[in-house]
Every structure is written in structure tokens, then in C-alpha cells.
């Protein structure tokens, strides 16, 4: 039976786990300190937000791929992971397409 699982654990040894862990810690510290720096004026408006999100996405990808073993999973699981975020993106995009294209009919109360 054990041949079923070979693929999963032969790829991840303890050093690799620790490596990913350190990358995550680094990301956390990086995001903390860059958030206190005003990149918006240094670079462009929204730079802070963008950077924070990029770091968060990277961290998430690491966790999904290695801690959750998706790297070694079949296409179905990969598809599921991608699709659910895609669906979320649909929700964001289609809600915001309304708000981003509205006139401002709100009154000054």
C-alpha cells in the first residue's frame, strides 16, 4: 500500500519544511516593516498596498504548495485551489465593476 504515498513525503524532508518556514517568517517581518514606510510617496500611490498583497500572496502560495502538498497533488486538486480563488476574483471584480463605474449620486447629509 505504501507506494501510494511515496510521491508526497519523499519530496519534503525536514530541512525543506524549515526552509519554507523561514521564508514565511521573513515575509512576515518584511511586510511589517515595509508597512511602516511610506512607499506611496516614495514610489507611487498604492505601492504599500500592492507590496503587502504581493507578500501575502507569496506566503499563501508557499503554504499551499508545500505545507499543503499541492505541488505533488494531481491536477484536480490544483484546479480546485486555483478555481476557488478565481471564483473569489469574479466576485470581487463583478461587484467592483459596479462601484467603479458609478456616478456619485450620494448626497451631502
Amino acid at each position, binding site marked *: 500500500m505504501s507506494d501510494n504515498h511515496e510521491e508526497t513525503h519523499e519530496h519534503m524532508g525536514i530541512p525543506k519544511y524549515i526552509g519554507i518556514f523561514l521564508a514565511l517568517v521573513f515575509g512576515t517581518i518584511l511586510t511589517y516593516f515595509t508597512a511602516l514606510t511610506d512607499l506611496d510617496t516614495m514610489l507611487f500611490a498604492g505601492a504599500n498596498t500592492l507590496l503587502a498583497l504581493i507578500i501575502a500572496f507569496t506566503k499563501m502560495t508557499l503554504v499551499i504548495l508545500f505545507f499543503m502538498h499541492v505541488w505533488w497533488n494531481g491536477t484536480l486538486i490544483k484546479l480546485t485551489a486555483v478555481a*476557488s480563488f478565481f*471564483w473569489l476574483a469574479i466576485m470581487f471584480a*463583478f461587484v467592483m465593476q*459596479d462601484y467603479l463605474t458609478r456616478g456619485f449620486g450620494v448626497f451631502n447629509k
Partner: protein
Amino acid sequence: MDATVNNKIGTAVVDRTVEKTRTHYLNNGHSLSSWLLTKDHKRIAILYLITVSAFFLLGGVYAATIRLELLTPASDLLESGTYNKVFTQHGIIMVFFFLIPVVPAILGNFLLPLMIGAKDLALPKINLLSWYFYMTGGGLTLFALIQGGVDTGWTFYTPYSTTFSNGYVMLAGLGIFVNGFSSILTGLNFIVTVHTMRCPGMTWFRLPLFVWAHYATSLVMVLGTPVIAITILLMALERVAHIGIFDPSIGGDPILFQHLFWFYSHPAVYIMILPGMGVISEIIANYSRKKIFGYEFVAFSSLAIAVFGFLVWGHHMFVSGQSMYAGLVFSFLTMVVSVPSAIKMFNWTATMYKGSVSYDTPMLYAIGFMGLFLIGGLTGLFLGAMGLNVHLTDTYFIVAHFHYVMVGGTVLAYLGGLHMWWSKITGKTYSEFWGKISALLVFVGFNLTFFPQFILGYMGMPRRYASYSEELQVLNVFSTAGASVLGIGLVLPLIYLTYSLFFGEKAKSNPSMLPGLEWRTQSPPPTLNFDETPVVTWEAYEFGEENGLDIEKARREATV
């Protein structure tokens, strides 16, 4: 038999030789706990059958009340406050506790494993859990109704629901929240089952279209339902704590609620219709004894509906104040998503070409479905055209549209399916005569009820009105009259189907020599479905020699 036996492999095998005392899933254990704690998908389907039907009757009583009140223009039978509660509860019960579970949880639960040659769903405990979620949700909602009811409309639009209504919005919301998880778990279970439980030889393109339709439905259930759950949760929070997310008087945005609500609730209408379409594919193919025309197209159109169905929710909000640009996008996609439905309609029709069409009750329902869903779908196009929607939205035209697709579509499909597989489910046959009568009554009554509402809608009668303008009375009387016929038509099956349970003839395992796997086991099936794991060597809807059934013998017997 011992109640605990139903988990053990082999029980059915042992008994199959002795036909008289054959153990099948129905008599495998008689204690209450053998039902309430069962992990057998077929028994769970029966549990659903009983409870969902009860909710349907309750919803139907509300419908009858609505129609009675609308017999006259004034609000004389009910006060407007009561009327508001009645249509709200009619909507909530019919949508969340009847139409969403009806086909997947009853027919899907029963047939999906049988059709793919599995012993059970992949996650039987989860399946049972989902029924308990359904019961809890249903119980909470019923409790809300007993306490005094809800009067927000099934759409729960804010800020009315959060700030102004003094109905039991929280309780009903909680019920819907819990019930949502029932739907999620069912969907999750189906997806897993279709992926991992197919028997040898059952490739994706040999799956019956019923299975494809349920697969597509399940995707929507898993990806859509959680959004309504969180939305209802936020609405409830808004109500108790005034969090200011939906309530405009403290900075919130009522239109955001509509976006979140319809993000689920539009796909939800496809949760309601897709399984019904699966049933229709089965009926049409089997009662024409022909391979479905354009199998791949019918299969993929289900997936296309499921996916594109997520992109059109804004067509419920054309006049709500969303931006014109967003309206254009949603209207465009609404048109796009109706094309896969069109594909299905044409393929079904083409399937009958050169077939061997019999007019048994299920087929009558299927033909009824085709006509009524067609009209319902086409009037959906009226609503999807923005300019027309402005005039039609929130009028009876909408009411007519969605009853045509939901009652004329899904309910008819469900009844057709129930009749088609009744002998498989119960091992008994029902009366063809009464079946045909009731199918006819439903069709006639339905049209009489809801066709006048299209005209009423175009004349400008707004929906959710306890009292209406006098010049509209004539058509409303027609509608109420039709509803009575419809009501009789729908109560009839209840009677003759129940009757057949006790006095019906014993059914054969495969009376019509149909090729589906569910017909290759006994009626009713044994607890583990098949005595031996089936191996599929034929294509879907194969009526010829290759399907391995002894048709010659059946023919000989039939002519004797």
C-alpha cells in the same frame, strides 16, 4: 434482519436467491434508528422525500392563501401585514426548503451512486449530516413562522430587513444559514463521488446526463452557497448590532447586500433547474429509446450554465441604482448564458427524431417541461433586455417568469423523475391512468394560473401587492381558478403514489429494458446497490445489442 447489518458487505448477496424474503434497503432494518442513523444513500433519499414533500405542501398552502387573497382587489381576506408574511414564507419555503433540495437530495441522492455503479456516495456520514442540517434549518425556520413569521420577501432586501421589519428575520435567517450547509455538503459529496466512485468502465463520457447535470449543480452549490451564508450572517448582525455594512442610515450600502445576495441567488436558480434538466435528459432519451442527440453538447452545456451562471447576477438589479455600465455587462452575459439552455432544448427535441416514443406519465411530464420551460426561459430574455426590464421588473411578469421556470420547469421535471424511478425506489408500480390525469391537470392548471400573470405584469401590476387596482381583477380570477386546478393536479400524485405503496403491483427490476445501471439491480435495490460491482462496456443510452440486456427475451415475454 438486524438493524446494524446494513453496513456490512454481503448481506444482500446472501439473500438474493430467496426471492420472497429478499433483503433490500427498505426492509433491511425496521427500527427508527435504522432510519434516522442510516448511512445508506437510498434511505437518506427517502428521509428527504418525506420531509421535502411536507415542506412543499406547506408552501403550497401558502400559495393557495395568496391566490385566495388575490381573488378580489381589496385586501379583505388577509390584512396586508399578514399577506406580506404569507408570500414571504411561501417564497422562503419553496426556494430554500423545497426547490433547492428537491431533485438533488431526493433523486440525486438515490440515483447518483446507482447510476455510476457505486455502493454508496463517497461520504455517507456527511450525507446523513446534511439531512440533519436540512432538518435543523427547516426546524428553525418553521419555529420562526410559528413565532410570528417574516415579512421581508424571500430576498431580505436591506434596510427593510435589518432595521424596519419586526418579523422574526433572525430566526428565519439562521434557518437558511444552517440549511445552506446541507446544500454545500450534498454538492461536495456528489463531486467527490463522481470523481472517485465510478465503477470499472464508467468513463466520463459514459455517464448518464443526469450525473453530469448533478456534477454541474454541485459546483454551484459548493462555490455559491457559502456566500449566501455569510451574507445572511452579516444581515443578522446588522439587525442586532447595527454594524453599518448594509444600513444606509449609519453609512452602509444596501446595494452591496443585493450584490452579495444575488451572487448566490442567481446561480441558485441554476441549482434549481440543472438537476431538473438532468432528469429530462434521462426521460427523453429513455422514453424515446434513443441515444441522446449531441451527448457532449448537452453535458457541457450544463457546465457552461453553471460557470456562466455566476456572471449574470446583476440582471436582478437593473433599476436598483447599479451603474449603467455594470448593467450592460450583466445584460450581455445574461444573453450569453441562455444559449446553453437553448442547446439543450434543441437536442432534446432532436432526440425524439426517429425514436420509439412512448407516452408514459414521465414522458408527459417531460413534454410539459419542454413547453413550459421554453416559455419561462424565453420570458427570461424579456427580462434580460434592459429596456424592457425597466417596465417589467417587480411586476407580475417576473412572478410568471419564475413560476414558469421553477414550477413548469423543475417541479414538472421532478414529478416526471419521481414517476420514472418510482418503481425502482419503492418496488411498486403506480396507476398509469391517474398519473396521466394528474399530468394533464397540472399542465392545464399551471398555464391557467400563470399565463394571465404575464399580461397582468405588462399591464403594470406590481408584485407583492395585497391589494391591487380594480381593472386587473378579471385576470386575477383566472389565475386563482387555475391555481385550484393546479392544486388538485399536484395533490393527486400524493394520493395514488401513497396508495401504490400499499396496494401497488410489485415492480420488475427493469420493466422497460432500459440500459442505465440503476436498472440492472433489483427494485428496490439491495443495501449495497449491486450484488457484484458492475463493469460497463457500453456507451451511455445504448439500446442496442451491445448493452448486454436480454431484449429478445423481454420481447418474447411481452408478446405472450
